[in-house]
């Protein structure tokens, strides 16, 4: 029983980070109906930027802020350079193009920063809290991760539900024609969706880097988990992405704890297949069915 609690505690912060990554995928899907497989490549790239800023200035926080700004910009650039021209042809072309961006970003990062894994030390203590005479697998850094994710998700939900621009973004996602007839500049809302997704991904990247190491391909595995969470959540539901992101993190922690962490991607695949078999439209989706 104490093992079970340990595994769950250990899974919370990675679950919260997967939630952010899933959120980034959902933000892009809602705005342009494209799954952006380059999302975590963008996050990897901005995390390297954060690492460089941190090495130059010594400030983790400044690194985070610069990475967030870079995430916004990279999101806009990817949208304009790659998605816009390809999307005019068809959607599957755009999805394949995002793979191209992923490969290009990984190659570029390897050229700039080298291909070897680099340490990205946590800004605060990452050893577990001590209580009731034992050490629990939950550290001050885990608390920082959790707090950052909660703040970001709350800020996003305020933007989406309480501001004009959030309403315009939601309307553009649900019904672009009605949005345009109401005077919303829908194309700008789509670009904004990609930009915010880039920012959310950048935060996820900076937060997840200390849990392992940073290399051009070190985030690839998280794409599998984030994609699983986003699809199970319904792909267009922000709530679903957060809920199933955390859920996926916990399930992976349990599987890794009781068996071996190399089984985690397999479990993600099983979850995905079960979802497609029994609830293909996703748990929180607005649509009744989805073509698979």
């Amino acid at each position, binding site marked *: 029983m104490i093992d079970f609690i340990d595994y769950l505690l250990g899974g919370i912060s990675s679950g919260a980070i997967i939630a952010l990554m899933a959120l980034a995928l959902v933000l892009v899907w809602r705005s342009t109906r494209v799954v952006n497989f380059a999302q975590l490549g963008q996050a990897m790239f901005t995390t390297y930027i954060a690492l460089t800023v941190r090495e130059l200035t010594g400030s983790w926080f400044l690194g985070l802020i610069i990475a967030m700004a870079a995430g916004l910009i990279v999101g806009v650039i990817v949208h304009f350079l790659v998605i816009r021209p390809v999307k005019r042809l068809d959607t599957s072309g755009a999805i394949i193009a995002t793979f191209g961006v992923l490969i290009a970003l990984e190659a570029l990062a390897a050229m700039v920063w080298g291909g070897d894994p680099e340490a990205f030390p946590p800004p605060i203590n990452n050893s577990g809290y001590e209580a009731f005479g034992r050490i629990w697998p939950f550290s001050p850094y885990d608390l920082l991760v959790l707090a950052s994710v909660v703040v970001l998700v709350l800020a996003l939900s305020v933007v989406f539900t309480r501001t004009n621009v959030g309403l315009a973004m939601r309307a553009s996602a649900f019904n672009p024609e009605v949005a345009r*007839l109401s*005077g919303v*500049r829908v194309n700008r809302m789509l670009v904004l969706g990609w930009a915010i997704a880039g920012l959310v991904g950048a935060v996820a990247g900076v937060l997840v880097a200390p849990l392992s190491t940073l290399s051009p391909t070190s985030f690839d595995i998280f794409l599998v988990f984030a994609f699983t969470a986003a699809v199970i959540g319904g792909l267009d539901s922000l709530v679903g992405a957060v809920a199933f992101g955390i859920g996926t993190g916990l399930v992976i922690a349990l599987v890794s704890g009781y068996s071996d962490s190399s089984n985690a991607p397999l479990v993600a695949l099983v979850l995905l297949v079960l979802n497609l078999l029994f609830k293909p439209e996703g748990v929180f989706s607005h649509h009744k069915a989805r073509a698979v």
Partner: protein
Amino acid sequence: MLRIDGLSVNYGAVEALKNVSLDVPPGRVTAVIGANGAGKSTLMRTLAGLQKPLAGRVLFNDEDITGGKPEDIVRMGIALVPEGRSTIPDLTVEENLKLGGMWRTHAQRATSLTRVYALFPVLGERRDLGADTLSGGERQQLAIGRALMTGPQALLLDEPSLGLAPLIVTQILELVELMARDSGLAVLLVEQNAVTALRVAKTGIVLNLGEIVKSGPAQEIAQDEELRHAYLGY
């Protein structure tokens, strides 16, 4: 106010509108009637910028707006209520309304919102509920309310009677007519339901297979038996 001059539009390979010219003056309802497939919706979608014309011009207050984008045309003061009660079910009633006219000042929008709630009290009562909880007639009111939130000078109503009980249609259209008279709104109403449309309209225009076959005072059109048999089917 709104002048359509020699408009031709293709819908796929079909010539949906052929050389259509008409005027939509302020302060009254102008009704375009005709059977299914006469080109009524194509006319409305072209005016709102959702479709590009082959030839002809659309003038609004003497300004050429032909081929403009929908989001620019609505900002100029032409609001379309498309066919099929175009509300967004995932948003609340008030969010649907607030979607209209976001470029306007806070004060202008607040005034419009008060006015819409006064016109359609049921929307005020349900403002925080999802738009999917509304009945068909209420959703039509919401769609019109959203268009009014953009502060239009011209209102385009595409087939508002579709799927609604006759009594509700009459109520809504009489309200629209009253609004046109009171505030100088130019209303272009497109309808299959000719009887109700001609009752509230000043001018009637009969459209058949993309061409105007008759136009004149609504009362005359309503009483023209030959016309009724030939084009309106009753």
